[in-house]
C-alpha cells in the first residue's frame, strides 16, 4: 500500500517518541512506561489491537458502485455538452447535474488514490486507475497530481511546511469558504498553484509526469472554453464546466480539507489531526466527512463505511482522547 508505514512497530515507535529512553536522575521508575497521554505501553498496545481488529471489519467491501459512479458520471458529464448545445437539456438542469458530478467526482477519485478499488498488482488495477483518471477531469485536477498531493497530506497532516492542504486553514467557516476562492487567484500560492510548486520541489519522475499532465489538462480546459465561447456557446461552457468546476473545488476544499482538520495549528498527532464534527448538511451532503478521522486512521476503509466504522471504534477513540461529543 502507498500510504506509508502503518505497522504496529512503526505506530508504537511514533507514539513513544516523547517518552524518555533512559532512567531519569530523579526518583522515578527505572523503566518509564507512561506515554504522553498517561497510558503505559501495554495499554497502548491493547488499545491499538482492539482498534485494528474493529477497523479490519470495515476494510474493503463492495466497491463496484464507485466504478459505475465514476465512469457513468463522466459519460453523463461529457454528454451534457452536446445536449445543452443542441438545446435538448435545459441549461439550469445541466448546471445542477454538472455541479454534483464535479464535486462527487472527487469522492470516487479519492478511493482510487488509496487503491481501494484494486490494489497494485491486481488484475483489476487498471479499473482503479481509470476511475481516478476520469473522476477529476471536470474539476481540471489530474489524477496523478491529486494522488501525490493527497498522500503527502496523509504523511504530513497539519504540518505547516509539508501538508499541501495546510493553506486551506481559516479561522471560521465563512473565511474558509472565502479562502477556497482566494487560494485559486492567479498570484496566490494556494490550491493548485501550491501543488505545482511542491511537485517541482519533489523533483521525482512521478512529480514531473504529474506536472506535465497538469499542464496539458489545463491547456485543454482553456482551449475547450475558448473554442466553445468563440463559436457561440460561451454560456453553455460557463454553466456546464467553468462555474461547476469552481463550485466543486470550493465545496471539496471546504468539506474535505477545512471542516475535518480545523484548527490545524500544532495538531499533528494520530488522534488529533482530524476532528469529528456535525455538519449542517448531514452526512451524505458533507461527503461523509463528519467521520473523516476514520479515513485518516485507516485509509483502506471506504468512504461510505467510515460512519459505521466510527460508531464501532467510538469507545476506543474516546480512550485515545478523541472528542466524540459531536457525533
Amino acid at each position: 500500500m502507498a500510504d506509508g508505514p502503518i505497522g504496529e512497530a512503526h505506530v508504537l515507535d511514533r507514539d513513544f517518541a516523547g517518552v524518555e529512553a533512559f532512567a531519569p536522575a530523579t526518583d522515578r521508575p527505572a523503566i518509564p512506561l507512561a506515554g504522553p497521554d498517561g497510558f503505559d505501553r501495554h495499554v497502548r498496545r491493547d488499545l491499538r489491537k482492539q482498534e485494528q481488529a474493529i477497523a479490519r471489519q470495515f476494510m474493503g467491501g463492495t466497491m463496484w458502485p464507485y466504478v459505475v459512479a465514476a465512469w457513468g458520471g463522466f459519460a453523463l458529464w461529457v454528454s451534457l455538452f452536446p445536449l445543452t448545445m443542441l438545446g435538448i437539456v435545459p441549461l439550469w438542469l445541466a448546471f445542477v447535474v454538472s455541479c454534483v458530478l464535479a464535486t462527487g467526482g472527487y469522492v470516487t477519485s479519492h478511493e482510487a488514490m488509496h487503491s481501494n478499488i484494486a490494489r497494485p498488482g491486481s488484475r483489476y488495477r487498471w479499473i482503479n486507475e481509470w476511475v481516478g483518471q476520469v473522476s477529476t477531469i471536470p474539476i481540471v485536477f489530474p489524477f496523478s497530481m491529486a494522488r501525490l498531493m493527497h498522500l503527502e497530506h496523509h504523511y504530513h497532516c497539519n504540518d505547516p511546511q509539508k501538508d499541501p492542504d495546510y493553506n486551506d486553514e481559516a479561522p471560521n467557516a465563512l473565511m474558509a469558504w472565502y479562502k477556497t476562492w482566494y487560494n485559486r487567484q492567479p498570484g496566490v500560492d494556494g490550491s493548485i498553484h501550491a501543488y505545482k510548486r511542491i511537485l517541482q520541489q519533489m523533483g521525482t519522475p512521478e512529480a514531473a509526469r504529474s506536472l506535465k499532465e497538469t499542464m496539458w489538462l489545463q491547456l485543454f480546459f482553456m482551449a475547450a472554453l475558448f473554442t466553445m465561447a468563440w463559436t457561440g456557446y460561451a454560456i453553455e461552457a460557463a454553466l456546464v464546466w467553468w462555474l461547476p468546476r469552481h463550485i466543486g473545488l470550493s465545496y471539496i476544499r471546504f468539506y474535505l480539507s477545512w471542516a475535518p482538520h480545523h484548527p490545524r495549528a500544532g495538531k499533528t498527532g494520530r488522534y488529533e489531526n482530524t476532528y469529528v464534527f456535525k455538519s449542517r448538511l448531514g452526512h451524505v451532503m458533507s461527503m461523509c466527512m463528519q467521520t473523516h478521522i476514520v479515513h485518516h486512521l485507516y485509509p483502506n476503509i471506504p468512504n461510505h463505511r467510515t460512519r459505521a466504522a466510527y460508531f464501532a471504534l467510538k469507545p476506543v477513540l474516546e480512550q485515545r482522547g478523541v472528542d466524540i461529543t459531536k457525533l
Partner: protein
Amino acid sequence: MGQAAVKGLFRWMPFLFGIGFIAPLIAQSLAWWDISAPFGMSRIAFGLLIGAPWGLYAVLRGRWI
C-alpha cells in the same frame, strides 16, 4: 526554451482568458437577455472592452478582484 514558453503562456493566461472567454461570455449573455451594448458598440466589442483589461488586471495584480 519550451518550459519558458509554457511558463509565459500560463503567466498571461488570465489575459487570454479575458479575451478568449469573458469577452464572448459577456456578449452572449447580453444577447441572451436581449440587452444592447452601450454607446452603440457591438456586444463583442463591449465584451472585449471589459474582458481584456480585466484579464490584464488579473495578470498584473495576481487577483481577479
